[in-house]
Structure formats: C-alpha cells, structure tokens
C-alpha cells in the first residue's frame, strides 16, 4: 500500500465518521444553534468526499452554496425565531420515536442489503479526473441546456417567492383588524401614508 492510497483511505474514514456523527448530532442535540453548526461541518465533509471522488468543481459548488448560503440562511432563521419555548408534552412521544426509529432502521437494513448483494459494474470506464469541470460545462451547454435555463427561472421564482412570503405585509395585517395591532402600527409608524391608510 503506497502512501497516497493509505492517505486516501484515512481521509475517507475521517470524513465518513464526521458525516455520520455530525448527522446524528444535527438530529439529536437539543440546542438548535449547535446543530446548525454541526450541519455546516457535515456539508464540509461531504465536499471532502467529492474531492476524493475527483470532482473539484462540485466540491467548490457544495462549499459555496451549502456552507456559504444555505447554512448561513438557516442560522439567520434560527436567530430570527430564537425564543426559548417549552414544547408542550405529547402523549406517547417516546413510543412514536421508537417506532419511527424501527422504520428507519428497517429502511437502513434494506438499503444495506441492496448495496451489498448487487453486482455493481465496477470498474467502469476510466475516470476523466481533472477535466471534469470542462466536461460539466460541455454538458450544461449542449444536452442539459434546457434544465440549465429552467434552473435560472426556478431561482428567480424562488427569490421572488421568498421575498413575497417573508415581507411584513402591513395592509394584510390591517385587513385582519384587531384593534391592538392597528394601534401598534399607528404608534410605530412615522410615515404619513400608513396613518392615512389606517384612518380610512
């Protein structure tokens, strides 16, 4: 075993243990801020696995999009809704967790069995390695052109939708008029337009 292969093996073992333990931590840890940071660790380790698979472009995209955007967005959402609230106890919660754990373990056993008994056709054709980025570019501008353009439309729709959903909509609050909310708006607003609208 040469030094490069043993390094690869060690990297794989470290990354996979970080992924599994980090995933468990995301699900099980009570404090949600800790689980958000652990989620960032899981994303970074998945990017490391992509590097082991000779896919530097996708690894960079993973770090940029997941760690840089999605994880930061989740942290912002946690900060915005961060209220120490005591969840109401529910009857049979333990039983529910146990049964869903059984179902997930069954799914895991099924997937393991499929993984092991299937004869995967490896090794396939020789991996192209470093020119993978160029090959992805060729794919995106030839046979995957339509999904590529649709993805841009999807991102635009998601952006507009997120703005519309998260906007603090003064007029719709006013339509549901309870008096205290209305008074609050009038008191808080320094803008004349708001005062005129609420006096109508």
């Amino acid at each position, binding site marked *: 075993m040469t030094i490069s292969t043993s390094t690869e093996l060690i990297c794989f073992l470290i990354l*996979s243990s970080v992924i599994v333990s980090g995933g468990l931590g*995301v699900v099980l840890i009570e404090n949600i801020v800790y689980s958000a940071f652990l989620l960032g660790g899981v*994303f970074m380790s998945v990017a490391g696995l992509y590097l082991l698979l000779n896919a530097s472009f996708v690894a960079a995209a993973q770090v940029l999009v*997941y760690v840089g955007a999605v994880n930061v967005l989740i942290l912002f*959402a946690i900060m915005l809704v961060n209220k120490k609230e005591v969840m109401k106890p529910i009857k049979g919660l333990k039983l529910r967790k146990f049964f869903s754990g059984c179902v997930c373990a069954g799914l895991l056993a099924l997937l393991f069995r499929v993984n092991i008994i299937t004869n995967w056709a*490896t090794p396939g*054709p020789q991996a192209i390695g470093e020119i993978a980025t160029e090959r992805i570019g060729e794919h*995106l501008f030839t046979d995957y052109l339509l999904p590529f353009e649709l993805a841009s439309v999807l991102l635009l729709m998601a952006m507009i939708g997120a703005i519309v959903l998260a906007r603090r909509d003064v007029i719709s609050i006013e339509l549901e008029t309870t008096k205290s909310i209305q008074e609050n708006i009038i008191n808080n607003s320094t803008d004349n337009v708001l005062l005129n609208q609420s006096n109508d």
Partner: protein
Amino acid sequence: MFNSQELIPLNAYLLIASILFCIGVWGLINSRNAVRVLMSIELMLNAVNINLMAFSSYIDGNLIRGQVFTVFVITVAAAEAAVGLAILLSLYRNRTTVDMESFNLLKW
C-alpha cells in the same frame, strides 16, 4: 463482496449515503422544531448527492452525468431552503411558535 481492485469500493460511499439518508428521515419525522425539519431535508438531499457523485465517478467516469445532476440538485436545494425558511418566518409571525405539533392549519 468488495471489489479489491479499487482501494475504496463503491459500496463504502453507498453505505455512508444510506446512513445519512436514514438519519435525515428519522429527523424529519421526529423533530418538533421547524428549523430542524429543514435541516433534516438538507441532510437527505446531501445523501442523494453522495450517491449520484459516487455512481458518476465509478460507473460513468467518462461522461460524468451524475455530477451535472448534482449541480442541479444543489440549485434546487438552495431554492428550497430559501422558500422554506420564508414560509417558516411567516408561520412564526402568525403563530409565534416553531413547534411542528401546533401547525395544524390544514386539519379539519
């Protein structure tokens, strides 16, 4: 069982991905905090991405179509996270809670 020609077999990546996917499913079912539900969905999407990348590297090493699919999945996941968190914020504004058990607006 394992192909001894390659150092890290394809099965190892698939096993990691399936473990991560099952953790994600369990978290999706059992989380009571709505933000944690979104985090579990991200875990599941990452598990699927690991699968796609492993197959594209081991079986389709020539025309890495799996990597293109992974790029698309990452795009959709980013859009999903943005819209999901916006929905979560407006829910929180209406209900002042993030407990999944109290979101029963569609119950009849």
